[in-house]
């Protein structure tokens, strides 16, 4: 089953995108080490590989893969104890993901107790008999899905993606976010496998995920509009992309998750996200915090405008600006939402897209700034960052061509 899923997954989205993202991550890691690649850096780079692989193939890895991803991210974040921002980020993730994992497991156990079997498909068959009171599974089912929703980063759990993008180093954050989000999708898919045989449950789950997606779009869009720090904007855009996947999972055969559905939706979504997020996260490191008064452009746009534009392309793709592969991801979700007959989800999605577009344009203007009157600063942006930005943009352009 796992092998077949991995095969289908690789057919849908060849692993070029995670490889490019991994290369960008390694380049940024080498930049942090100032060109010196010692044993510690090599270890960190080695950890990035499973993270990139998790971004590409998490469903094939199952629950063990999820735990591995969680552990690796925590370990990498906790490594640098002197970095306050990073430590705070680790604690927040640990609190929230740990608690979500515990609660979701409690939900899973509750379902097992109610049905007398730990096998998910059998649980639906038992529940379909109607022997147990409704409130038992109606309580257990949402709790068991909690980890998936939290990991996807949809609001009100959108903070962790922004925290990670701001707190974690640029070589780790994008891969970690995508790996965690794909793990969340995998959790949902695993928990909802075969639910189509239990109609009441399928309907309840579709409604639940639709509400979660609506909330993710509405709150995420509002949050995005008030944010000023580029890294946090990128993080919130990532969480909105998580909302997109949530909506797709909710509407794919009306809440029927499972391996078949996830293999049809997630690979394309994740291969875009990993590239766009890598590019946008690197770009965000070179942009200033937004100010009410326009200022001169940062050094990236003064000395290496082409690399800056490449980074902006990645950010635009994340925001779903027309002409980028990300627009296709947003549009696919919009079509799924229109077919679902739930106008409120569509309204929230429209709002989120407009907010994303506005913020992307605002970011462009802030990046280019006002015309400077003095010569640009002498220090250039390191070549590693520029190459990483270019690689991500090239990958996105290739994706756009492939998807057309």
């Amino acid at each position, binding site marked *: 089953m796992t092998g077949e899923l991995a095969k289908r997954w690789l057919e849908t989205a060849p692993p070029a995108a995670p490889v490019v993202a991994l290369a960008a991550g390694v380049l940024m890691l080498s930049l942090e080490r100032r060109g010196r690649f010692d044993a510690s850096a090599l270890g960190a780079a080695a950890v990035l590989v499973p993270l990139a692989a998790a971004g590409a193939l998490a469903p094939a890895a199952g629950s063990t893969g999820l735990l591995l991803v969680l552990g690796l991210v925590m370990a990498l974040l906790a490594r640098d104890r002197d970095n306050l921002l990073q430590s*705070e980020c680790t*604690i*927040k993730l640990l*609190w*929230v993901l740990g*608690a*979500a994992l515990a*609660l979701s497991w409690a939900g899973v156990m509750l379902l097992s107790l109610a049905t007398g079997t730990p096998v998910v498909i059998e649980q639906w068959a038992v529940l379909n008999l109607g022997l147990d009171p*409704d*409130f038992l599974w*109606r*309580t257990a089912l*949402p*709790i068991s899905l*909690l980890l998936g929703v*939290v990991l996807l980063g949809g609001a*009100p*759990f959108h*903070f*962790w993606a922004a925290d990670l993008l701001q707190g974690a180093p640029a070589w780790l954050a994008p891969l970690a976010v995508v790996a965690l989000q794909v793990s969340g999708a995998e959790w949902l898919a695993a928990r909802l496998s075969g639910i189509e045989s239990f109609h009441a449950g399928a309907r309840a789950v579709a409604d639940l995920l639709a509400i979660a997606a609506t909330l993710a779009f509405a709150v995420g869009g509002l949050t995005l509009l*008030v944010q000023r720090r580029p890294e946090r904007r990128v993080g919130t855009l990532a969480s909105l992309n998580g909302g997109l996947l949530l909506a797709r999972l909710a509407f794919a055969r009306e809440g029927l998750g499972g391996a078949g559905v996830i293999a049809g939706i997630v690979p394309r979504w994740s291969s875009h996200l990993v590239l766009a997020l890598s590019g946008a996260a690197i770009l965000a490191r070179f942009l200033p915090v937004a100010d*009410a*008064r*326009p*200022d001169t*452009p940062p050094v990236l*746009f*003064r*000395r*290496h*405008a*082409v690399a*800056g534009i490449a980074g902006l392309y990645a950010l635009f793709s994340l925001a779903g600006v*027309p002409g980028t592969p990300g627009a296709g991801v947003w*549009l696919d979700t*919009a*079509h799924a*939402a*229109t077919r679902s*007959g739930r*106008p409120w989800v*569509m309204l929230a999605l*429209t709002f989120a*897209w*407009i907010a994303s*577009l*506005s913020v992307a*344009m*605002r970011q462009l*203007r802030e990046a*280019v*700034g*006002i*015309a*400077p009157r003095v010569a*640009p600063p002498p220090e250039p942006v390191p070549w590693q960052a520029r190459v990483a930005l270019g690689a991500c943009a090239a990958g996105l352009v290739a994706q756009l061509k492939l998807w057309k």
Partner: protein
Amino acid sequence: MRSPVEWLSRGSGPRRTGIALCTAGVALLWAPSLLAAALGLELVAAAFWWWGRAAEDAPQQVTRWSWMRRPATALWLAFAIHAAFPMLAQAHHSVFSARGALLELARGAGTLDLFRTIAAAAVVWAGLELLAALPLTRAFSDLPGPFLGVRIWLPALLPAAGFAVLWRHDEWTQVAAVRQTAIVLLMITAVLAALRAYARRAWTASLRWLVVTDCALAALLVAGGAVTPTATLLLWLAACGAHVFLLAGELRGSAPRRGAQITRLWRAASGVALASLAWPTAIANGPGHLGRLSGVVWPGIAFTSGLAEWITVGRMVHAEERRKVMRADPALTLTHVAALLVLVLGPFALLVAWWGGFEPHWRESLAGLLPAVVGAWAGIAARQSRPRGVWGRLEGVGVASRGLARRVFALVVYIERRVLAALDGLTGWIAGAMHDLHTGDAQEYLMFLVGLAVLAVVLPLLR
């Protein structure tokens, strides 16, 4: 070596880049696709921004013209809805109300109608904001543009862009609530613009506001739907084109006013063009077409037509020649050709409208034409001071009425700004209160998660 951004930011770079962006943007606005229109407005906004960022007072200019992204965003919204609902472009529905769409939505149906209403409102928002018809940017025509070379007439481009959006994507006229709201807002804009044009003493400032008046009247004609789109476009082109040409001419040594004959020709041409536009607009928004709403809208249009005609005909005075040695000009200049074209275009557009089925009743025609004719007559009479003595005695009234017009405009803008500031304050207060709810501590997230889980457990039990 300078980067591309640096190169485009210095020397003649901003001028050329801005002009290229603006030209491309305006051209795209006339394309039938909403994507092209959204892209076009984005490019026009980008041109203003690019000019602004290169100006001496760049921070001020960039902030001043940043609102121009709002209309572009509104068009992106309309485009997104059309992309998500491809059937919107295919379906041709009769006029329906937004309230009905909401009621249907509450019953679980009517999604398509709701989104059609939103798309129509977005298109109207974009058009109205560019036409200075929304309180957010009412007074932009009082400000010079961000680009030094053509600062004076640059804001005249924006109402024209607004008209282009409303004319090209006229599906909004099919949504009753959106159409009626737009009609009322356009009427108010036309009145305020005419008052402002009257209150301003400088001819260039008056012309900028007359362009807004022309575009608002033309948009009212689009909303009324009494004449064919081609005729509407030609009528707008004649009236607005005349004022834009005069405005551009002021930058070229007041060429349209150099000489008694050319001044008379331009006076006649712009007067006829404005009357040609005002006449069908008044009919389209009269009781026969608009019902009870015309009781509010028609007087506004009549007042605007009369006042704008008065200003157009009466304010254009022959510019005195100050040179001692005159340059030999050709008998027929570009200014002459343009004036003749404007003179012919208005009546020709009316002919096209008649050919397309515009055959109003003579009473409606008379009522529609009367304000413009009275305004033009008063303008001519005041300039010639006939009957003798009467206009001299009314001079004091003129000064007082200009002051009154200025105060009315200022009062409306003041009230609108206060209301907006109050709304902004309320939003800030709510957002601040919500922001204060969370501290950002790690423990807080844990508590939130646990609270949510408890809620998930308790809610089904309560059911």
